[in-house]
């Protein structure tokens, strides 16, 4: 990837990025239209919420995705990946959100971004480029996103480390081959890559609303980590450097999801008649949808701005831009989620209507790594100054 001094006007979203995005849109449009999605994840409410059966995803589609090389997009070229621009990855993830794709792609991208910032992450990056899936296990029991917090401790044992404790809110844990874990080791925070089948590691499924992912608590009881899998002795630094990318990826998913919600609700407003008119005639329907459009536009523009800032290696600017993008995307997602149910009226409240699938994916992503209020609090510290 070539880097110049100045971020380009077009966010660096050029022909390659457009081609990947369009390919993704076409592939997902064919393989995961909303009726297939519904069959896949929401055929039987009792299976999910009462019998707590593992949520389903299309593993055949995932194999194709791996073959297309999407898992390696964020892996630097020198580590065997594509080293794709974040702007291009954002374009891809927007489509993933638009189709609410159940997959470990976002989790793997997030973990890749952290490994790429870890001094010892190269071997795992190469495996990810080959299709290994990964996820982050860095969150404590109350769901704090503060980078120094966690409920995992590591102790030295010869050349190895031994992990005890738990990491919570691990995204798509059951789809991941390896967990990227932060643990307290004396005065250090270490970052480890822990294969999902390690002895002493157990995944306890969370019962969650979102139908398009899984989430788990990862429990560690004397899990031994070989020296080569201790990828960094400065986990906080690696996470900090990766954080803009992580936020932008989740924000892009939110934006794509929100655009689906907008378009679907607009279509409903054109089709559905009440009082002898399509309900889109009424300003109480039309104006909120226009407001949602403007909010989504803002979030989308801020996502590409942040992606571009990451590509052009301006860490302070990138974190600021990414927090703005996540704040705008969380708020836009919350607003269109609300309106998508309300304006669909009675049917929007039912299981048979697809809006709830996107509503729940959005609600999950709104909270993930901090909502708008959280991001703005952090932004205020840098933009206005500490209190």
């Amino acid at each position, binding site marked *: 990837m070539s880097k110049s001094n100045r971020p380009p006007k077009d966010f660096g979203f050029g022909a390659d990025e457009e081609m990947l995005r369009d390919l993704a849109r076409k592939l997902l449009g064919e393989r995961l239209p909303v009726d297939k999605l519904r069959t896949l994840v929401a055929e039987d409410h009792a299976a999910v*919420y009462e019998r707590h059966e593992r949520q389903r995803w299309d593993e055949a589609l995932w194999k194709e995705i791996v073959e297309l090389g999407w898992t390696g997009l964020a892996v630097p070229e020198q580590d065997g990946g594509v080293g794709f621009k974040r702007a291009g990855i954002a374009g891809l993830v927007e489509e993933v959100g638009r189709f609410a794709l159940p997959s470990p792609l976002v989790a793997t991208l997030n973990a890749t971004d952290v490994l790429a910032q870890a001094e010892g992450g190269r071997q795992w990056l190469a495996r990810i480029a080959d299709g290994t899936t990964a996820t982050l296990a860095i969150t404590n029991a*109350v769901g704090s996103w503060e980078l120094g917090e966690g409920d995992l401790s590591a102790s030295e044992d010869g050349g190895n480390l031994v992990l005890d404790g738990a990491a919570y809110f691990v995204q798509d844990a059951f789809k991941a081959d390896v967990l990227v874990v932060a643990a307290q080791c004396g005065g250090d925070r270490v970052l480890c890559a822990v294969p999902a089948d390690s002895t002493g590691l157990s995944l306890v499924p969370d*019962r969650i609303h979102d139908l398009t992912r899984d989430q788990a608590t990862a429990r560690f009881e004397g899990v031994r980590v070989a020296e080569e899998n201790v990828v960094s002795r400065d986990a906080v630094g690696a996470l900090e450097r990766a954080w803009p990318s992580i936020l932008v990826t989740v924000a892009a998913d939110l934006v794509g999801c929100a655009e689906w919600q907008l378009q679907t609700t607009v279509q409903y407003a054109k089709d559905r008649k*009440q009082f002898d008119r399509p309900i889109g005639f009424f300003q109480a329907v039309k104006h909120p949808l226009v407001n949602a459009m403007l909010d989504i536009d803002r979030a989308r523009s801020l996502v590409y701005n942040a992606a571009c800032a990451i590509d052009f290696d301006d860490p302070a600017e990138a974190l600021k831009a990414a927090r703005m993008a996540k704040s705008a995307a969380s708020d836009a997602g919350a607003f269109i989620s609300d309106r998508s149910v309300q304006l669909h*009226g*009675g049917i929007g409240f039912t299981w048979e209507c697809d809006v709830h699938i996107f*509503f729940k994916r959005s609600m999950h992503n709104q*909270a993930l790594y901090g909502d708008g209020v959280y991001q703005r609090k952090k932004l205020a510290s840098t933009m206005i100054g500490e209190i």
Partner: protein
Amino acid sequence: MSTPNLTAEQIEFQEHARAWLAANPAPETQIDLPLSQLELAKREQVEYYREWQRSCYEAGLVGTDIAKEYGGHGHSGCQDIANREMSRVGAPFLLNTVGLSMMIPAVLKHGTEEQKRRFIPKALSAEEIWCQGFSEPGAGSDMANQQTMAVRRGEGWVVNGHKVWTSFGQFAKHMILLARTSRDHKYDGLSFFLCPVEGHAGVTVKPLVKMTGELGFNEVFFEDCVIDDSLRLDEVGKGWTVAMTVLTHERGAAEGAGGGIRAVHPIERLIGLAKSSQRGGGLAADDPVTRDAIIRQAIVHEGIRQDARRARVPALNDHPMRLPMGQGVVRTEFEQDCARLGVDIAGARSTLYKHDDAAPDNGYWPLAYMNSYALTIAGGSNEIQRNILGERILGMPKSK
């Protein structure tokens, strides 16, 4: 809790209510009780609440102000006291809410003597559960756009059509049914029936799955269902008038009436959540933006209480219906906003469903948030409610 200026009868009743409730707490149970009436899904839950309502009824706390000849207790101005006392102790909700707050007011106002004697006592005791049949799949917010037809045949009527959003439908003995008896008039073509449901030929109840994956609402299909003409309420063509009686009462009657989960003070609940949630490295309860959002809701909550209080002071009401009619929008959006705020405060933990042990308040917040759309949509969406307020209270021209 202020109860000034009580009559001797009321004071005596209040003492009785307090004593009875203290002596008769709701029975312990192993049943998985729902978070609200709207999530009732299992027969065993229904039986638990039926039994509770029956005992309250026998103790005089239900049907308190209804005449004795209709199964009531013949008091005056005591039902409010009963409701308040039940709410105060966090008693389970009263199961037969459609019967109590919709059917009974309608029958008292529009019904025959025979109808009153036949239906009111068993609704009070919860022996017969009622459901409501106003909403249709095609009608949406336009309640007058009923397509379910009732056609005269001999001494009775033949009903064909399809109702949706029918809470309690799967457990109900009867339905208050709004049906079209003439296609020539939109409003005057509607009539009102007290329609049998359970075990009645031509009526099929099919539970509807909500977005939360829970049951609670139903679809009800009528295929050549025959109703006797004695089950018609008020005159043919007066259905809209009766429905307005029902809905005015419903929107105004959200107060009191036993609390169950809702008896927990919603602001206390939010504060409790904030005190057990993390935000930005500290407690959410110490985050000033969260605090501001909670206090906003606290002010709305107090405003709802004080609006209800002011609604009963004629000198402080320029338009008699302005406060009562406004409450529907205010209360339903208050519930929604509170629930949404709870989701935000819960943060990562808002991702968890109710059966997850780590879900705060047993998973109340995201479920309450999603279920709140039933409040802002059903019975005429809040968009339509705002039209009605703008037209009926402020006198602006119709938007339809």
